[in-house]
């Protein structure tokens, strides 16, 4: 099956630096998710439904703003959200993977020199 997650040997999962790295990865992941989902809710449920009447008072081009969000704006934002998530998570995955690899190398070195 897939081996996307960095394969960690036991010595590395015991290493506090590696655990801190993994915890940091997860915190950033959750923060990104919460942020994007807040925008997700704001443009669709917020601008398109709950505050649609208020926003309809504003006109942009030929559109009333609330109506535009419901029919076009929210969907455009959704597409952007998916792109942002893919790009940011890709970078986060690569960075932390590299950090863990580096930690794994030093752990092996220390183990090797003590032997």
């Amino acid at each position, binding site marked *: *099956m*897939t081996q996307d997650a960095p394969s960690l040997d036991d010595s590395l999962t015991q290493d506090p630096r590696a655990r801190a790295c993994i915890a940091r990865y997860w915190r950033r992941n959750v923060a990104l*998710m919460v942020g994007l989902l807040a925008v*997700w809710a704001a443009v669709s449920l917020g601008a*398109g439904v709950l505050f649609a009447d208020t926003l309809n008072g504003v006109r942009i081009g030929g559109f009333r703003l609330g*109506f535009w969000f*419901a029919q076009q704006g929210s969907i455009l934002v959704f597409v952007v959200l*998916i792109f942002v998530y893919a790009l940011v998570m890709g970078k986060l995955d690569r960075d932390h993977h590299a950090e863990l690899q580096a930690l794994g190398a030093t752990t092996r070195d220390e183990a090797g020199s003590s032997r």
Partner: protein
Amino acid sequence: MSIRAWTFLFVGLSFSLYLFIAWRSRVRDTRGFYVAGQGIPAAANGMATAADWMSAASFISMAGIISFMGYAGGVYLMGWTGGYVLLALLLAPYLRKFGHFTVPDFVGDRFESNWARGVAVLCAIFVSFTYVAGQMRGVGIVFSRFLEVDITAGVMIGMAIVFVYAMLGGMKGITWTQVAQYWVLITAFLVPAITINIKLTGQPLPQLGMGATLLDHGVPVLNKLDKIHADLGFASYTDAFVGSRLRSL
């Protein structure tokens, strides 16, 4: 050539293309069948997913429900598309990282509970059943018009074709077929949308055309739609629906 001959030509060509792709990408192992051996490039996967968005149900009924319900139809648009964001953020990455083939497998292992697995199975069956029922009805209608048979026969013919290419190629065949469908569908969507838009408003971008003014009457498109709705006795097209009124805020 008559319209009928053209229809046969285009439908015949696109189906031969799909079946050819399915034959070329036929698979023999489980990994290939369920996850396409994970050898599909990201852009191709994106196209296949987009082709799912533009399926028979959206082609036939989304346009109808939005013009029928006006503003309230926008809820379907937002839910339909917004679901992809939830899928991309909350489910898809973890399904991949856990290395499972199906959502119930993932949910069951993630929460270490067979109850959760059972609930996920029920949801999956319910969602797939609703989806397939809508799609198959759409396929049936298309085939019944095109081959001039009744809808039940149309559904059978459509199912037979899907069965052949799904069995041959599994997810690999389906994904590459969907990539081909993506190009066919997007052309079929854009050509009439842009043509009609140029004819009505004199510029090519449909997204702007909706907010533009009609060339013939000098009336904004949306005002015209509002008036049509009012004439038919519905609420105005651009007015937020009753349940959404939080005027005081």
